[in-house]
């Protein structure tokens, strides 16, 4: 194998792929990146067996071939190299010489035969979505997935593909995020449960202007644009009936300036309990009061003006759940709708100039007596 590539090209390719390389693994070859030189250029691939990322960068290939190289070291070396041509040649089966200007490195690789093959996903039958739509969905929804191992299904994002729209839903059982985006190029109907880590890769690897082709096999999902591909394992099992828990009759509706409520929650949240992060919200016409009382720590009160003319209501929330949602709301004002102190509250953007529809909901905290 013998090829020349610019430092920038190689760096870009490695950055895309390196994120899928596991930091800790029991299978040593997974810490490596598969480097394949051919007439098409230089293909770089990495995987942690759950997610695989592969991309091609332009290179002048003199002699095709392939090898795997330690990802971390390769990335570090390329990062430190000056902006110039990098010449890579194999010396023997697994030894690689890397030269750039007067810098020379010799790296030991692992045979490419040990590198796992990528999941067989046939792109013949595929959906087509814009990367911009996908990024919007991922960016607003995937945060809400659960990190607890007890219910693996909630560790994934539900992705519903329909004739005229696609929707992502994620929840950890305490809060939920849901977004719909209209679709023009219809494909077949599907419900996929995708690990958020894979979606993060998709968000990172593809540019906002890309048109992405998506295809599935039985257990895997593939994303493709040009020569760049992302594959992920799908999470199996039925997703809980989220529609049933989205309240329809929340009639106590407050319209609130997003930054103002976020600042207030952050302020009083300082003295909230480390375990429950509880903040109490008291709504009365025109006013929202915040109070925190944490035994052994202290108390805090705050107040902001809001637009609200419903009955007074007091409701307790985990401050972190509120902040996570508020942070992602795409408008200056948000609408917070409630029904009762022990029922789910919904948060939605107000006056969002976008074809997408976004809704989050959060369950309150309750005092055990």
């Amino acid at each position, binding site marked *: 194998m013998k090829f020349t590539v610019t430092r920038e090209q190689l760096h870009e390719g490695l950055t895309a792929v390196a994120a899928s390389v596991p930091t800790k693994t029991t299978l040593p070859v997974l810490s490596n990146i598969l480097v394949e030189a051919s007439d098409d250029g230089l293909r770089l691939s990495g995987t942690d067996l759950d997610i695989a990322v592969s991309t091609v960068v332009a290179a002048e290939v003199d002699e095709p071939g392939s090898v795997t190289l330690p990802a971390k070291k390769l990335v570090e070396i390329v990062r430190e190299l000056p902006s110039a041509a990098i010449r890579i040649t194999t010396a023997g089966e697994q030894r690689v010489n890397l030269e750039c200007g007067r810098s020379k490195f010799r790296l030991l690789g692992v045979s490419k035969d040990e590198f796992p093959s990528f999941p067989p996903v046939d792109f013949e039958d595929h959906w087509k979505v814009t990367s911009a739509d996908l990024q919007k969905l991922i960016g607003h929804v995937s945060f809400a997935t659960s990190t607890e191992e*007890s*219910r693996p299904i909630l560790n994934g994002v539900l992705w519903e593909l329909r004739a005229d729209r696609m929707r992502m839903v994620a929840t950890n*059982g305490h809060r939920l995020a849901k977004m719909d985006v209209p679709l023009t190029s219809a494909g077949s109907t599907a419900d996929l449960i995708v690990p958020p880590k894979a979606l993060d890769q998709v968000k990172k690897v593809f540019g906002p202007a890309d048109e992405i082709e998506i295809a599935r096999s039985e257990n895997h999902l593939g994303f493709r644009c040009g020569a760049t591909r992302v594959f992920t394992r799908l999470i199996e099992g039925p997703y*809980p009936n989220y529609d049933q828990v989205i309240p329809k009759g929340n009639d106590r509706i407050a319209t609130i300036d997003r930054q103002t409520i976020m600042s207030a929650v952050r302020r009083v949240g300082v003295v909230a309990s480390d375990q*429950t992060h*509880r903040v109490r919200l008291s709504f009365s016409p025109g006013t929202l009061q915040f109070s925190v009382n944490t035994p052994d720590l202290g108390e805090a009160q705050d107040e902001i003006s809001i637009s609200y003319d419903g009955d007074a209501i007091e409701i307790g929330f985990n401050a972190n759940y509120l902040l996570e949602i508020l942070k992602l709301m795409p408008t200056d004002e948000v609408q917070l709708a409630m029904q009762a102190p022990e029922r789910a509250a919904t948060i939605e953007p107000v006056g969002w100039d976008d074809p997408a529809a976004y809704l989050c909901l959060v369950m309150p905290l309750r005092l*055990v007596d």
Partner: protein
Amino acid sequence: MDAFDSKRILLADADAFFVSVARLVDPEGAGRKKLLIVGGSPDGRGVVTSASYEARAYGVRSAMPTGKALKLCPGATVVGVPRKECVERSKAVRVILQDFSPSVEQASIDEFYIDMSGTEGLFGPDLKFTADEIRKRVLEETGLPFSIGGGTSKLLAKLAAQRAKPHLDNDGVYIVAPGDEIEFMRLHRLGEIPLIGPKFVERLEKIGLQNVEQALRLDADAMVALMGERTGRWFYRRIRGLDASRVRAGRPNKSLSHEGTFARDISNDAELEKRLLAFSTRVAADVRKKRMKAKTISVKIRYHDFKTRQANSTFTYPVSADRPICEEALTLLRRLRKARNAPVRLLGVSLSHLNPATGEWQQLGLFGDPEKGMETDHDIVLSKAVDNITTKFGHKGIVRATEVKPREKD
């Protein structure tokens, strides 16, 4: 430091407590046996809870399988543990000790820390004299011999109590006078100091510290450089007998547990799970009785070869209802069994990080189905109903269907 400024702490430690109680309960039987083993059964099952000093001379130790103990000491008599009497006498001892100081901390069934600081006006400045008085009164009123150690910290009192034991030719009291702490610590091997375990000793040996004397030569900064900030500072104080922990009267329960050694080793997973559920239900009921909730659960297995393994997990929110506790206990047991599937002689479950049940904030869930580690209203109501039944009819009043033995057909 002036003697009157320093703490005056005693540790009263019963001499072979279970043996003494067993003898008091049965003066004609166990009371006449010199070679006495308490715990397990004469056919060699179970483990030794305690043994008479005469039997200990044969190498019998507590927590040893009774079968092994009988091989070492064939002439010994084995009697069961008189649990009820042990608890009663322990309480009686505590009441007597509280006459000497309001600050009595029960460290175990037969060990009591007594903070005597500030009692000089009442009992005189001689701690040895006071300790002798305490010993005399406890022996007279309960029939139980105690050894008492004393010093300026709980750590010193604990080590001194070991030196006070009568079988070591002492008269049952050993007091480390203020100022003599370091001299006293020099008498000990590193591994004899509480909380310095075999692993730590190994680590100390690797860095060239074989005994207290060598360790005393290092200053605090050197210790920190060798073992890190926290351990270094702690160890520096430890080997000087310094221990800031206070005698805590009425210390709350740190954990509650339920465990059992089986009559025969159990290999069958279904059988183990059945036992575990019974233990879990009991310990959950104990937690509820104390109006507490637990944050952490541990399952312990001791295999036939005495290797012991433990698995723990933490609940997202504190719980006390049967369902989440039993479910998590099963998960932990399965994890342990997956790692090693050998016959089991002992199984136990414990709940810790206990906090008062009321006033806790609970995150409500979106989905009606219960999540791991979260108890639903239904769970709480159900557990309360079970508690009401057991209060009236005892623990056998209501049991899981799996615990019911199938009735033999006529």
